């Protein structure tokens, strides 16, 4: 048992319910698409939905695009916001610290558990999306490749590695959310406040992206490059926004984790 925090997180029914709910929305969308055959016109609606009717395998990536703007960050903000503040609220934080578990060590374990949850969430959405797509929307023409956003044909090999990179990119984007929520979780003894605070930050960021006057700020907003994984399906791949997205998330992760560490290791635990 290397990480007790993993056991605690995944031993809890709430964690599994949130993963289940996270996968429910894409499954419903796939069901509706299969039933009606009505795909949005290319260029409207969530990314890739127009393509999946032709090829169900692509639903893995479409499912990620469906949950990325709201559902995925909510689930992660809830779990990460719970990490330290949840222990504080239950009163177990003081007993962990006098067991003793060093404060830095505890924070690293919490980060490990939250990262595992992020991976589980992203991978399960992609895997279940793939399965549901294959079952409900048919195998399509995967063997013949897919039409890229630039109009050329991508081979199955191309699609496979691009999808792997897309999953990694989404995971990194979500780690930014996780780091923010963990930081807020060390500030308060209320897990709800930490989760809602993180959500408010993300909603604020999404809102500012739609305001022209906020243009100078936009390259630094955490949600700015979230949907840039779509660029992986251009031919050739348009790397510039993906690179910027990774760099930006790395800065957010480092800054928020350092802030969380600085705060948690020097504060009075009065819960």
């Amino acid at each position: 048992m290397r990480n007790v925090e993993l056991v605690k997180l995944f031993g809890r029914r709430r964690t599994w319910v949130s993963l289940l709910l996270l996968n429910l929305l894409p499954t419903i969308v796939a069901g509706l698409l299969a039933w009606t055959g009505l795909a949005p016109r290319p260029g409207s609606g969530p990314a890739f939905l127009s393509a999946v009717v032709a090829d169900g395998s692509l639903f893995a990536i479409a499912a990620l695009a469906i949950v990325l703007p709201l559902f995925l960050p909510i689930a992660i903000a809830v779990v990460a916001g719970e990490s330290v503040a949840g222990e504080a609220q239950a009163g177990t934080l003081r007993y962990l610290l006098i067991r003793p578990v060093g404060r830095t060590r505890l924070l690293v374990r919490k980060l490990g558990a939250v990262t595992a949850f992020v991976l589980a969430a992203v991978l399960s959405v992609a895997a279940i999306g793939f399965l549901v797509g294959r079952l409900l929307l048919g195998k399509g023409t995967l063997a013949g490749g897919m039409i890229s956003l630039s109009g050329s044909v991508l081979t199955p090999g191309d699609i496979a590695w691009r999808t792997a990179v897309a999953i990694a990119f989404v995971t990194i984007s979500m780690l930014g959310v996780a780091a923010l929520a963990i930081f807020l979780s060390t500030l308060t003894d209320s897990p709800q406040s930490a989760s809602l605070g993180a959500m408010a930050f993300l909603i604020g960021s999404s809102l500012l992206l739609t305001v022209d006057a906020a243009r100078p700020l936009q390259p630094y907003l955490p949600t700015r490059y979230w949907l840039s994984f779509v660029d992986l399906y251009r031919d050739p791949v348009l790397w510039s926004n993906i690179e910027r997205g990774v760099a930006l998330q790395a800065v957010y992760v480092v800054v928020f984790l350092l802030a969380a560490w600085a705060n948690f290791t020097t504060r009075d635990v009065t819960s």
Partner: protein
Amino acid sequence: MTTTPETRTGVEPDQSASSRGPLVIRTEGLTKKYGSVTAVDAVDLDVRAGDIYGFLGANGSGKTTTVRCLLGLVLATSGRIEVLGSPMPKAAADVLPRVGALVEGPAAYGHLSGRKNLVIHDASGRAPSGPHGGGRRDRSRRADDVLEMVGLGAVGRRPVRAYSLGMRQRLGLAAALLRQPELLVLDEPTNGLDPQGIREIRELLLRLHATGTTVFLSSHLLAEVEQLCTRIGLLDRGHLVLQEALETLRTPTGLTLVVTPDADSAVSLLGSAVEHHDGERLLVRADDPIRLNAHLVTEGIRVRELGPERRTLEDVIEERTRARAADEVPT
């Protein structure tokens, strides 16, 4: 000062040893301020090996803040803290595995059983080598042992959600005992227990004390402290106003207590030797209680009770806290 292994076994749990034993907790000028409020003000504690130290104080007097400082949960504003011979919170990783604690009520994960909570609690920290070690191999056995000790053997597998307040309190105590600590720091350990439970816990603490565990017990229940403790410290609005062996506090005052239904005739007989008169109770200055008794009886005064006056803990505490209130400069 270092605590050597033989201090654990070499300590006699009696009064004389407690005044000579090595220091288990020592603070010098411990002060904690929250903003402009001083919760704990220049407290100098000394708790020795073999003590059952009763840490008394009204609600809000700073007991819990002091306990949290000792355990490194709250960082002191100034002053020095030594626990088991090492500075806190600097040496927390070495000190805390040898300390078991119950701070401001128990806490556990409600969806897990009591036993699983203990196992998880134990697994979350490192298992040091030596007498306080015990790794994952005997973890379940130790969990079962302590559940048995606190009287939860039969319900250890039920989820904590279904526990009563008293059962949670026992589970918290079990967690504190899991690693056979040299020092037990217990904040209100009998909270929520019924009289039977209080007696059981008291007997358990006395048993542990007899095997060499030092107990630091914070409480506002005087009766509990009076029955259990060998030394007491009294905190009044952040100040330590008293730190003494209980025996010393309760030494006879030199006056003789006489209880008689003929109080008025006794007063007129003894005159100025009567220091205090309250109903049937008289406090008399007398060199020899035997002669006093003979004197009273030969004068036809019926004596129901006669003996040296001992102050109760309550008297002492009232006196000390009143004295400090009188010192205070009105603002």
